[in-house]
């Protein structure tokens, strides 16, 4: 709870800093403040408590994910300095919006009441609609904001309808109470209907396959930093919320529910990966690979209750890899009209550090051992095997191979084709290099010592 309040205060301080013309202070202040909040949250990770009539419940799960969100926001805010160089007058607005987005994300993993869940979802989505359309002179940015807004508000509506149906069946908004009622008494059929509607709304937010059509266009059109937020912070938030909702609400579901879920997971993996092969735009490639990673993370839904450490590990590995990849993307494509993969040609000579960071990120996403991504997949797969979902794991492994193919394609282009491309050095702002390096270092450290994260849940 204190975490949430502190972030809110920080956001207001950022706005005040603009009033008294301290724009230069905004980013250092926010980063230091968030580091402090991160330290506080990690120290209090074992505090299990409910606040304000069960509106906000902090558990190990919610605290661990909140820490991850705060860490990701620190990276994003630090990147803002160079990204928004040309519109520095708006920096306070951008940073405070990101802090509000973080508040929404924290609400979504630590809600104890459906009202808080929905408000967190809305805070998160509305901030994103704004950030997508922030580049208002760019037609692609407008397109992305419009598409995301229309589809996202339908998804929110479906979630709200689901909440209403669950309220109708149980007479409560409190998630612990709903869970109790659903376990002990037999409920009308519209309870399962409501739960399914909420799940569908959340599947939209994670861009699982039948509901993924918005993702590539929106990712491509939005300003790159916003795409970074969407593919790291928001995706992880949505998955964590989906997991929490599933743990608490999925009682008395029809038996076919599990089959449907497994089917969705498999097509999410497959369609995401197969579409990614054909992309020539790096942002679209990362969008489709993000779809398939959502599929991997949805494997955690087959082992509700016991999968939270594994899910957390995978989410951390994926989001930092995404962060590193997008940092390099921003550094390489900052002056380009679009983000073609060809602009990475010969990066190994033009800027070796960036090339190595991107390689680490992509190899980790592909699941090459030593990097965190491998262990993330390994834990999720072995748990799924234990629970008897062999088909799911077979598809997962096949899709890992497919994904390695297109990740390696990018890496090869960076370290080959020296002759044909321009050989001029690529100057990268110092902050981009630092952040990319830190993110890559986190991927390796987390890969070498998985217990660092897994022990957070014991």
């Amino acid at each position, binding site marked *: 709870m204190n975490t949430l309040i502190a972030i809110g205060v920080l956001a207001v301080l950022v706005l005040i800093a603009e009033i008294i013309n301290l724009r230069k202070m905004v980013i250092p202040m926010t980063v230091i403040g968030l580091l402090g909040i991160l330290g506080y949250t990690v120290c209090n990770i074992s505090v299990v408590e409910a606040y*304000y*009539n069960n*509106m906000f419940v902090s558990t190990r799960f919610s605290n661990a994910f909140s820490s991850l969100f705060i860490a990701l926001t620190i990276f994003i805010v630090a990147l803002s300095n160079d990204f928004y160089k040309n519109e520095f007058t708006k920096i306070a607005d951008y940073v405070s919006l990101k802090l509000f987005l973080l*508040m929404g994300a924290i*609400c979504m993993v630590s809600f104890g*009441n459906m009202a*808080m869940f929905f408000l967190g979802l809305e805070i998160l989505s509305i*901030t994103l609609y704004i950030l997508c359309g922030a580049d*208002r002179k760019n037609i692609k940015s407008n397109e992305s904001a419009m598409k995301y807004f229309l589809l996202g508000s339908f998804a929110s509506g479906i979630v709200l309808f689901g909440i209403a149906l669950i309220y109708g069946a149980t007479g409560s908004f409190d998630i612990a109470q709903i869970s109790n009622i659903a376990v002990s008494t037999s409920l009308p059929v519209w309870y399962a209907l409501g739960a399914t509607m909420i799940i569908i709304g959340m599947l939209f937010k994670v861009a699982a396959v039948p509901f993924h059509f918005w993702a590539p266009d929106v990712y491509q059109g939005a300003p790159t930093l916003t795409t970074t937020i969407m593919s790291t912070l928001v995706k992880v938030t949505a998955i964590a919320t989906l997991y929490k909702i599933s743990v608490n609400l999925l009682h008395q579901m029809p038996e076919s529910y599990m089959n449907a879920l497994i089917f969705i997971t498999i097509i999410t993996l497959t369609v995401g990966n197969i579409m990614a092969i054909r992309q020539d735009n790096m942002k679209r490639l990362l969008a489709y690979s993000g779809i398939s990673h959502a599929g991997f993370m949805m494997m955690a839904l087959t082992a509700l209750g016991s999968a939270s450490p594994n899910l957390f590990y995978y989410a951390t590995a994926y989001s930092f890899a995404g962060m590193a990849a997008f940092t390099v993307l921003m550094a390489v494509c900052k002056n380009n009209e679009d983000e073609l993969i060809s602009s990475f040609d010969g990066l190994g000579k033009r800027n070796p550090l960036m090339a190595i960071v991107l390689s680490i990120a992509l190899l980790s996403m592909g699941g090459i051992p030593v990097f965190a991504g491998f262990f993330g997949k390994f834990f999720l797969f072995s748990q799924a095997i234990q629970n008897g979902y062999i088909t799911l794991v077979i598809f997962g492994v096949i899709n890992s191979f497919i994904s390695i193919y297109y990740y390696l394609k990018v890496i090869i282009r960076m370290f080959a084709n020296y002759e044909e491309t321009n050989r001029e050095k690529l100057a990268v702002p110092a902050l981009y290099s630092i952040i990319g390096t830190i993110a890559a270092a986190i991927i390796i450290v987390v890969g070498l010592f998985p217990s660092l994260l897994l022990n957070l849940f014991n």
Partner: protein
Amino acid sequence: MIDILFYILSTITLGSAALTLLSKNPIHSALWLVVSFFSLAGHYILLNSQFLGMVHIMVYSGAIMILMLFTIMLMNLNISNEVQKPFVTKLVATVAFCLMGLIILSVVMRGTEIYELQYTTHGKDFQSVQVLGQVLLNDYVLPFEMVAVLLLLAMIGAVLISKKDKTEKTA
């Protein structure tokens, strides 16, 4: 007393709704809609839903009507010379309206059936603004504050999108 009020309000509601449809000028029709919304709020208050009535006035008569008027004015729709619609469109519209009316009529006819409603009485009037305010600021204070955050960020977003770029001036 309440009966008389109800009939007066209903007359205003139906009359202004009809005028909304019949007036040629879009702005007049929007204004008649405002009158209709206000009288609907009166109905809510007659039913002892004070909060709902107030929200109806603020949201519908305030926000949504302003939005509609702005749209009409900005898009310059206040020209009353309508384009003649093709015959098929009119026919389809009539049939659809008749079917819709049939459904509503059948629903209203069934409204005379008496349903067993098993509501337990709390002794508290949850429709009054006072009780609602207490619930909102005691039990639901955190969502209340989060709504404040939501409104604040929406405002910041509007400012962000409409702010002048520094580069625009130099270019």
